[in-house]
């Protein structure tokens, strides 16, 4: 049961003005300026999108990869509430916060990319929806999940505002919200993979398979844990707090278990479909495939042994590698391994990169402000140094 003795969450405190928050502010301002141009003059004014590559990094990175990076909340909540591993409870709030930002921004990022954004209500209008469309399912699930996550996170805000009654009411229904918060990401993370199926032979055989939903779901789960490893290490360093090794070490083991299953499915699928020879062709795609595989296999070597999982540097590196591996698989499926024929090329413009960076900056800035002012991270005797 979840009644382990943990330090209660508390605001970290400290100043909100420092080099990191200021840099974030600059990036956000740049993004805003670019978006003004985009909405006034169209997508072509700021992006390199074309009819051979109608989806660029705003979709592949901000939405597909960004939402997978935001699976920490879902992965940890599953661990704590579904598999009843109460000892991980202190990880829930920070992971949820990062997920909340990741998803909310992925949702915002979609709007930037929609060519006819004012019609977006059709996505929820019974007379317009198309249940055959994978994107319809993804969009509805992600929208619902963003709402669900805000409710999951609301006790933190209500606690800060001193609204105890409201907080108690929300808490009574929390078990259902948490259950929804595990089912919805399972649905849309798998469907983000299924999005590619209808593109058929335009997606390189190393990334086009009916197993896409399973591959994307499994990878989203271990990427969720990888992100938590990454964030915990980073937060501890930045705020000069103790590393939560007693939680991170066993969690890394669970992550490796899911990773192992994933690798078996990933390789098995490529072999069964007879696509393996494509991985040995002299092509960019083959190189990307092995880069991706290296990122998946390296963590098994790096933290495969229990002793190595107690080493924060190794955990941090393994976390980064898995985030990278999952990101590469998505980038290859959606962009690098996507080939529609004809003489189309795509490489993002600086403006596209800046918008992606700006979204990331909103996330970092929000995380800093909220952890410093709201009770998210476990209380610690040593407070933030600055």
């Amino acid at each position, binding site marked *: 049961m979840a009644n382990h003795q943990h330090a*209660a969450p508390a605001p970290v405190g400290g100043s909100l003005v420092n080099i990191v928050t200021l840099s974030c502010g600059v990036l956000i301002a740049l993004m805003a300026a670019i978006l003004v141009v985009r909405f*006034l003059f169209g997508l072509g004014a700021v992006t390199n999108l074309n009819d051979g590559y109608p*989806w660029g990094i705003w979709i592949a990175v901000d939405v597909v990869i960004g939402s997978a990076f935001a699976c920490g909340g879902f992965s940890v909540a599953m661990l704590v509430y579904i598999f009843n591993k109460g000892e991980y409870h202190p990880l829930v709030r920070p992971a949820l916060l990062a997920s909340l930002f990741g998803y909310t921004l992925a949702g915002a990022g979609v709007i930037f*990319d929609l060519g006819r*954004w004012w019609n977006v209500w059709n996505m929820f209008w019974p007379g317009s929806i198309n249940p055959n469309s994978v994107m319809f399912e993804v969009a509805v699930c992600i929208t619902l999940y963003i709402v669900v996550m805000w409710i999951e996170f609301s006790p933190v805000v209500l606690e800060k505002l001193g609204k105890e009654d409201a907080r108690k009411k929300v*808490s009574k229904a929390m*078990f259902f919200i948490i259950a929804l918060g595990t089912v919805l990401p399972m649905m849309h993370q*798998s469907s983000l993979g299924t999005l590619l199926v209808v593109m058929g032979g335009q997606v390189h055989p190393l990334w086009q398979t009916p197993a896409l939903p399973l591959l994307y779901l499994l990878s989203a789960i271990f990427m969720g844990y990888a992100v938590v490893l990454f964030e915990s290490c980073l937060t501890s360093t930045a705020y000069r707090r103790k590393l939560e090794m007693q939680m991170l070490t066993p969690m890394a083991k669970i992550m490796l278990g899911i990773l192992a299953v994933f690798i078996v499915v990933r390789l098995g699928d490529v072999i069964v479909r007879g696509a393996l020879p494509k991985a040995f062709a002299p092509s960019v795609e083959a190189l990307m495939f092995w880069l991706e595989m290296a990122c998946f296999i390296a963590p098994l070597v790096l933290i495969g042994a229990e002793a190595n999982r107690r080493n924060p540097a190794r955990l941090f590196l393994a976390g980064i590698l898995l985030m990278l591996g999952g990101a590469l698989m998505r980038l290859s499926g959606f962009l690098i391994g996507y080939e529609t024929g004809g003489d189309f090329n795509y490489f993002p413009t600086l403006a596209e990169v800046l918008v992606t960076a700006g979204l990331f900056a909103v996330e970092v800035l929000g995380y800093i402000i909220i952890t410093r002012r709201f009770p998210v991270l476990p209380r610690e005797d040593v407070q933030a140094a600055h």
Partner: protein
Amino acid sequence: MGTRRDFLKGVMAGGAAATACAVAVPAAARETRPRPPEALGLLYDSTLCVGCKACVAACKQANNNPAEFSTVDHLWDTPLDTSGYTFNIIKMYRNGTMDQKDQETNGYAFMKTSCMHCADPSCVSACPVSAMTKDPVTGVVGYNPDKCIGCRYCVAACPFGIPKYQYDSPTGRIGKCELCRHRHKDGHYSACAEVCPTGATLFGKTSDLLAEAKRRLAMKPGEMNRFPRGRLRPAQEKALQGKPEGKGVMMRAGWRDEPDQSYETPAGKYLQHVYGEKEYGGTQVLKLSGVDFEKLGMPDLPPDAAAALSETIQHNLYGNLIMPFAVLGAMTWVAKRNVKPEDESSDKEGN
């Protein structure tokens, strides 16, 4: 140890559920859809095409599209490919000395690029808001800008690279051939077929066009034969269907009356392949050629539509929301046991 066992149980249940889904897929597979029986389409015969591009100009006019320039003088509409403003284009294949038309080496050939109006279109399956639809009777794949959210999933999904987006506009639309469905009510059919001087682009019911294509494949190359122009006339349709010609037959769909424009010309040297008969589950636009279709820019596609597989996966996982609700039920039950009301104990102590 109890929690570990719980944990493993959870993992196994999850795995079993996932496996069950994977196994269930072929069981309820959605087949690739056939064309509607009254499907309308075009037959493009590359061997008859002279590359005059009257169809490109007529398409521009019929769809109110602006000219696109690829030359410095900006005098003529010279699009190099279909785009958000160009729904139909004639492309040219050139090889070596270009001595002979419809010849692969040292020859040249033309190819029309426009929407194929798939029997089971990927764009329609992909569109989340039903802005891209397939008419249940005519099978025309139409676009509705008032619903379109501009996500461009249709652009990404189409194996022919047909729906295109207007990136230069803040209110950009998707542009594609809709077989001039807006002109049908006035008795007009596809403008490209109406103006084609050689009958290289022919309008009609796809089933008749397929029969016409097979009739041409059976011809001896160089032998004089009669070729229809514009659209297939009722008498020609009946002949192709193997029925005796009758009088007073209602003209289907009320096309405007026009004189028989068929003419005699030597038959081309065809590849024995009707492109679009089987590709991706079949298309309503069919093509004949003397040069390999892939060389002319038509992709080599499998006989099944990707939409069928995509929707099979989608509906096995989410059909009627049975599985999501089952998983939600299980998760709620487990969470109810594991979530202490509030998690208060730990939260309160700190405050």
